[in-house]
């Protein structure tokens, strides 16, 4: 399928004798929120890790906007417009909320050991970055906490800031690994409404792994279901929910 | 031939020293820099006991084992555990053991000075080769060192396997998360492993002066080599140090002897580079170590 945002073809990854991901192909259309679900240990996170350069897949191919990115390191993949978050909260604990957002902004001169002492070289870029970071904080209603140390804020705020970071890093495709894990229901709905807004206003593409189907399914455009390293179903929310294999996996009947 | 026997002896001592480092790292996730000083204490137990109470140093092997097991246990309880309980990172724990190592260096040297100044013992440089016996034409140290290492490794694998305590300790060493799930008392098991590690170091320290010159910094100067033994052996399996001790002991003594007969005696002083090079190569190309590599090949 040409023109897809992300095309994953027959990716395999095993650990020792365990086939964590056993030949999975998925395709993410642009401007959609795609949900990836499955029971614990079904290989969802390993799949994401293999796609995003966190792990090296044993075989298979990954194409981002028709460009092959298999085996690329994470930082290079980020520059191409695909950014991921992690299952466990991954704040830069020693920085403030704004600092966390600013890390994602690029500052070629300011982030060079040779050039950083010369403020004139990076001052203009930094001002733009600060403006963008504040705008992001505003959009995510994080402004009141902008100066709080990240390690001392709530999980919900950390998760929001992580999405903000991904966007500031220039993501066109954001892969979120359990973005509402450990977040209270009200905040969880807020996180997803924010994703919907980004999809509609900026045409961003999302791949979301989530356990809490009650909340996540309301917002998904398309769903993939994994079990024991393989894809067992895909389609719209309704199609997937009526699939006999999915019922079997989730309800055990 | 002499260097072959020396290499064999040295290998066993290296294996004994590495055994403790590996065990501690496996069970508690700490690289114990103070392990070198525990070895030195073993040597000073032997020196003190043989000087004041006579008898052969072999007679005091159990004493060295107990003293060093106690010292190592105290290091764990008083130094490491309080900070580990606060969730310190592995780096911070490494720094803790460095701090303990500094204190022990001071104590050992003060003790050695004291022995020398008050009792006029040659405590800064000693060798017990004269006390050794011969068995089957070889120095007793060869047999003793290998007996100690073999007893330790075999008892670890066999005896411990048949006791409940042993099973829990093995679980902690080989599957730490499983041990927690099993409801094992992790703290007392950790203490036991530190004591066992210290005991092994004590045996090595007690035997070391039977063949090699000892001084207050003997363990300190060998700590990097001990790390090489532990990492090269692989921390996944407790027979790793035995394997690595053999390879490194031979490379450092027998190998360098062979090499010097080819390229000249100029290479001998650089024998201490071998463990460093092996350590760096291991970290780069064989991060799971020898035993991990052997285990992987088997399946």
């Amino acid at each position, binding site marked *: 399928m040409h023109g897809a945002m992300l095309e994953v073809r027959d990716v395999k990854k095993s650990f020792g004798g365990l086939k964590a991901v056993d030949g999975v192909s998925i395709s993410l259309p642009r401007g959609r929120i795609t949900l990836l679900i499955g029971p614990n240990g079904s290989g969802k996170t390993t799949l994401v890790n293999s796609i995003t350069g966190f792990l090296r897949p044993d075989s298979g191919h990954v194409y981002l906007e028709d460009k092959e990115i298999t085996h690329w390191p994470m930082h290079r993949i980020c520059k191409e417009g695909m950014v991921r*978050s992690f299952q466990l909260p991954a704040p830069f604990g020693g920085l403030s909320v704004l600092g966390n957002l600013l890390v994602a902004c690029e500052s070629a001169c300011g982030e060079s050991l040779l050039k950083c002492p010369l403020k004139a070289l990076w001052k203009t870029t930094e001002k733009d970055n600060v403006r963008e970071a504040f705008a992001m904080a505003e959009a995510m209603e994080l402004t009141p906490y902008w100066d709080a140390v990240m390690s001392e804020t709530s999980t919900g705020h950390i998760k929001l800031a992580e999405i903000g970071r991904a966007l500031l890093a220039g993501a066109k495709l954001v892969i979120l690994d359990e973005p509402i894990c450990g977040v209270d229901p009200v905040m969880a709905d807020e996180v997803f409404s924010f994703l919907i807004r980004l999809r509609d206003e900026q045409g961003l593409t999302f791949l979301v792994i989530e356990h809490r189907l009650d909340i996540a399914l309301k917002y998904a455009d398309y769903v993939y279901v994994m079990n024991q390293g393989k894809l067992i179903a895909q389609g719209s929310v309704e199609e997937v929910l009526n699939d006999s294999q999915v019922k079997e996996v989730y309800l055990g009947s | 031939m002499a260097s072959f026997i020396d290499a064999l002896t040295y290998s066993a001592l290296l294996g004994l020293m590495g055994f403790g480092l590996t065990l501690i790292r496996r069970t508690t996730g700490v690289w114990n820099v103070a392990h070198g000083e525990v070895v030195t204490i073993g040597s000073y137990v032997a020196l003190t006991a043989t000087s004041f109470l006579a008898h052969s140093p072999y007679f005091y092997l159990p004493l060295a084992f107990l003293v060093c097991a106690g010292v190592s246990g105290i290091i764990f309880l008083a130094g490491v555990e309080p900070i580990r309980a606060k969730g310190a990172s592995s780096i911070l724990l490494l720094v803790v053991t460095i701090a303990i190592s500094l204190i022990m260096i001071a104590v050992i040297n003060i003790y050695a000075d004291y022995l020398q100044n008050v009792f006029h013992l040659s405590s800064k440089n000693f060798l017990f080769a004269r006390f050794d016996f011969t068995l089957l034409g070889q120095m007793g140290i060869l047999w003793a060192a290998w007996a100690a290492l073999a007893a330790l490794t075999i008892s670890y694998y066999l005896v411990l396997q048949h006791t409940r305590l042993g099973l829990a300790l093995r679980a902690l060493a080989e599957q730490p998360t499983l041990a927690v799930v099993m409801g094992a008392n992790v703290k007392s098991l950790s203490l036991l492993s530190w004591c066992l590690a210290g005991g092994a170091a004590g045996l090595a320290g007690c035997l070391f002066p039977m063949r090699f010159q000892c001084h207050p910094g003997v363990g300190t100067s060998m700590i990097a080599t001990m790390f090489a033994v532990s990492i090269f052996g692989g921390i996944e399996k407790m027979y790793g140090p035995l394997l690595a001790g053999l390879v490194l002991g031979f490379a450092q003594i027998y190998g360098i002897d062979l090499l010097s007969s080819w390229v000249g005696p100029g290479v001998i002083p650089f024998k201490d580079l071998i463990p460093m090079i092996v350590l760096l190569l291991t970290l780069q190309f064989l991060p799971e170590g020898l035993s991990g590599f052997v285990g992987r090949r088997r399946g």
Partner: protein
Amino acid sequence: MSGQWFLFSVDLLALFGIYLALNLSLRLQLGYTGIANFGLVLAFTGGAYVGGWLPIRLGMWLVEVDPSLADDMIWNNVIIASQVDLSLHGSPGTAMTILLITLLAAGAAGALLGLQSGYPAVRLGGDYLAISLLAFGEVLAIIGNNYDPVVGGPLGVRIPDVWAWAGDWRFMAASLANCALALGVWLYLDSIEKSPMGRMLRAIRDNPDAASSLGKNVARVRLNVMVTGGIICGLAGAMYTLYTTGVAPSALSRFDWTFLPWVMVVFGGSGSNVGVLIGTFTFILVQKLIISYKFALSFLPFDPVWLQFLLMGLVLILVLNFRPSGLVTEKASYALSRREMAKAAGKESL
């Protein structure tokens, strides 16, 4: 001020400058980037060896010395050094040329050693990296102690005194130069603090995977930091050699140039320049006092120098137990001032 106290203070100042530069290099690696460099002694030794090897050869080349002496540089070491000294006495220009070239070479050596030890190490995690660097740290000591042509084996060599021209003020000049090096490193770290670099390094320290997912080339940045740290250590090593006008490989120990800096930095706080300064000054002072008052403790049945080890170990344990981030804790700061940020964000104030 009596002469003895003057010498005490000047020597204190000299050591302080060297250690402060070294410790700030550790702060850059450990405090900012999270690299547990237990091999500081490596680049320091590299710089010290350059300081022991190069100046005497530069001296022979720049001033008139009996060329037949060059047949055995190590054997004739003291004669050559004193002949060069005589000429340097009257020519500060030549002396400073030697100093500059030596520093350049020492910085290059430090960079090379940082690169060489960092390249395999940066991909390793946490304490494995620390052990790997600890092992690297031993390598130069083994070579220097056993291979005489470098700097004469364990007992070392004497080198020409590049500060000889200052006459009676020689020690003062050398001490101030050491402090100038520390000041330079201080200012550099301060500029990192007040630039986007500081937050990127801290991001890499706090969560390398997340930093990598945001487009930061973590391995490259770590390597660059280790090279920079190596340069600083190399410069410190050379300055130390030039100050003491000699280098002895047996004196460049893991204890003095890796563990002691760690104790100072962990004690003072790796997150702050001021903390590092406090840690450095405290321990240098204690060390100097113990050495100076050794004679007063001669009634003890042991060498009082071990009290220093005891004290350091105990202090370190106490700090790790009760204040693991050190005396002075890290403060998050921004590259721009609050006013500049408010203006950029289009707000009245923050």
